[in-house]
């Protein structure tokens, strides 16, 4: 028996996702795209431009109709020209056309939203970067800095034929100062991080993952009218043993 580090979404499939489609291009934005996306995120939307349209996907539980009403007013302040043709459309977020420009981004945004809510009540955890969740307990100290362990949930993959997705959680070690500021000195970082992580065995990897996942799972997140649900990081596989021909090796 083997297992792979895979969190399968046990909630809804991502076909027929209701999204708000607006005729608008990134060049018409008053400010930067980055700021626009950040502001939309803080209001509970994932926003992406793709082929002359702006796609807005609600990433919390508020009803889509309310969002459409609000969005008309919201968007005016960000664009030079008023966005036109605001409508709701159902799309398959895992389809080849939409996966990279819309799907991956929306999934990461909703996961971030969900994890932010979850760790707000856990003083031991903090979120860094996109989707890296670190534990504040130092695994090892080296002078004024030390190693913190975390989990990255940034890798999202599609599951073939099911319009479904899975996350590939990985263990991360990073170098932080005592005030949890990331150490930027590349020499120090490479020395400390590699010294710690190169000695890591599969058992320790699993133990560290279990410890962190216990605090994070289950994860419930919403993309428009769909609910994502992740409850386990180990996907078990029954395999036939002895598939590698050892007789020629030993």
């Amino acid at each position: 028996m083997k297992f792979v580090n895979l969190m399968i979404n046990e909630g809804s499939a991502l076909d027929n996702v209701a999204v708000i489609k607006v005729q608008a291009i990134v060049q018409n934005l008053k400010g930067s795209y980055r700021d626009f996306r950040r502001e939309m995120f803080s209001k509970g939307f994932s926003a992406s431009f793709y082929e002359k349209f702006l796609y807005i996907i609600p990433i919390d539980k508020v009803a889509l109709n309310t969002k459409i009403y609000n969005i008309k007013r919201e968007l005016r302040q960000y664009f030079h020209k008023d966005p036109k043709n605001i409508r709701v459309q159902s799309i398959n977020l895992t389809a080849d056309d939409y996966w990279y420009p819309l799907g991956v981004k929306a999934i990461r945004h909703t996961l971030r939203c969900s994890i932010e809510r979850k760790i707000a009540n856990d003083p031991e955890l903090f979120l860094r970067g996109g989707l890296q969740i670190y534990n504040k307990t130092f695994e090892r100290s080296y002078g004024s800095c030390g190693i913190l362990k975390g989990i990255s949930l940034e890798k999202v993959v599609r599951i073939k034929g099911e319009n479904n997705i899975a996350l590939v959680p990985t263990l991360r070690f990073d170098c932080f100062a005592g005030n949890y500021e990331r150490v930027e000195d590349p020499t120090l970082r490479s020395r400390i991080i590699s010294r710690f992580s190169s000695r890591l065995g599969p058992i320790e990897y699993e133990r560290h993952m279990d410890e962190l996942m216990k605090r994070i799972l289950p994860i419930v997140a919403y993309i428009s009218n769909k609910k994502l649900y992740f409850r386990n990081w180990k996907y078990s596989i029954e395999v036939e043993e002895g598939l590698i021909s050892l007789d020629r090796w030993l």
Partner: protein
Amino acid sequence: MLEEKIRFETLELDLQSFQEIKTDRPQIIFKDRGVEYGKILEALHEYGPFDANTNSRILRRSFNGIELLFFYPETPEKERIIDALDKLAQILREGYTACKHYDITFDGMAREFRLTSFYAPERKDFIGYKPGSLSQSVERNMNLIREIQQRGNIPIVIVGGSAHRSSRARQMEYIEVKKEFTKRDISSQYVSYYEEGRRGLLYSLLEEKSPGLGFEIWNLGLNIYGKAGGIAWIVEQSLSFNVNFADLSIGLRFARDPRRGGYVVGHATILDRFGRLVGCVTSRPLRVTGMTISRENMREYLKNILKKALSDQRVKDVYSISKKKVLNIALHRLNHFHPKEKQGILQAINDIESLYDFKDLKIALISIVKDPSLMLFDVNQRSRDIRWGTAFKLNENTLLLYTTGSIHRYSKRLSYPIIVMNETDEKHSFITKHQELAAHILSLSVLHWQTVIPCSVRLPATIEFAGGVARLFKFGVYPRQNSQLEKTLWFI
């Protein structure tokens, strides 16, 4: 005429087809009749290098001796470097006896590589140079190099210095060495005395405790042999259940060039002979602006790569002896092939088909993800370890493959796999089964002539070597076209 549905491939998991795939360990061959060993160095010690044993007129090595020249920079660490070089020369001449349990005995270059003559200079003959002015020092000593060549031996220059690949400090010291010798068609080997990082072979030699050189001397020996143009071992392609095998395996790899902007694409072509991977040729890398190659560039670049490989005597000989009319090409790239690149590749293949008289020409586009997040854990093992050679099917054309890891017993260290995807449709590919895909990559991953630690390199030789070529080219280091040096492992 090859045609294909061109699209950008991305990883999609097929949970229904998750399955472990049977793999065999490729045979490493040191004699014509075939000798396969678990430990490469034991076999090399017992039988000597392949090209010293073979009866093949084309593959038998053309030189009998190697002569070394030692250079050192006139820097404050000069005395330490000279001391270490002196010790190194002695070891290469007379050998080294293992002093720790993980150490390996080395009986000297001449004995281990079956050389009729080997010369490493005495301390008084070491040549000093001022960093930044190596060119003048080399010019002054060119007559020594020509004399070695006239004796029928291969000159290899060993340069001691304080640069190290783990640090960018004094990187230009290393680049100067590579540039000056490579442009004169002389193979060079840099040995490091990196005091700050406590690393490098020369540093290990001067450590006060028992040195415990481990694999280091063997690694250097194999580097010297590869750079002289020798073939220490060859690898059988494990596609025994299928008569087809890759005739040419080509790796493409990008290296960013921060000084000039853009990227450099290096390539290495592994040649095949009767199902055995034998040698490597490179040609001039390509400069591109981004990490994709345009259709036209790819067409011309690949066409030239194929022409060069097909004109190599080792390949021509196979086609003339066996009247072989089939050409199978495997093309490897990190990440995925862009649709534009695929179009260019197919056009180049069609061009080659019209230029040569092949009955059948097939191609396998294999993309490789070096650091995938996916990993396997074996619940039945106390250590949870996954062994070298384990292949796991992720969908109909993709594998999770362990090219590193332990062979003999379960390890306590975590091994990291690679993801291998065959992006060619079944009609045009000569690799159609998962077993074939795994066997193809595994056999190329044990073809690192310079790698003495078995199963320690994650990527196949094609991509590793292409990376070496690209990294040096971005500093302007490249041998003269069609020179003898171009046929050696000058880039390792």
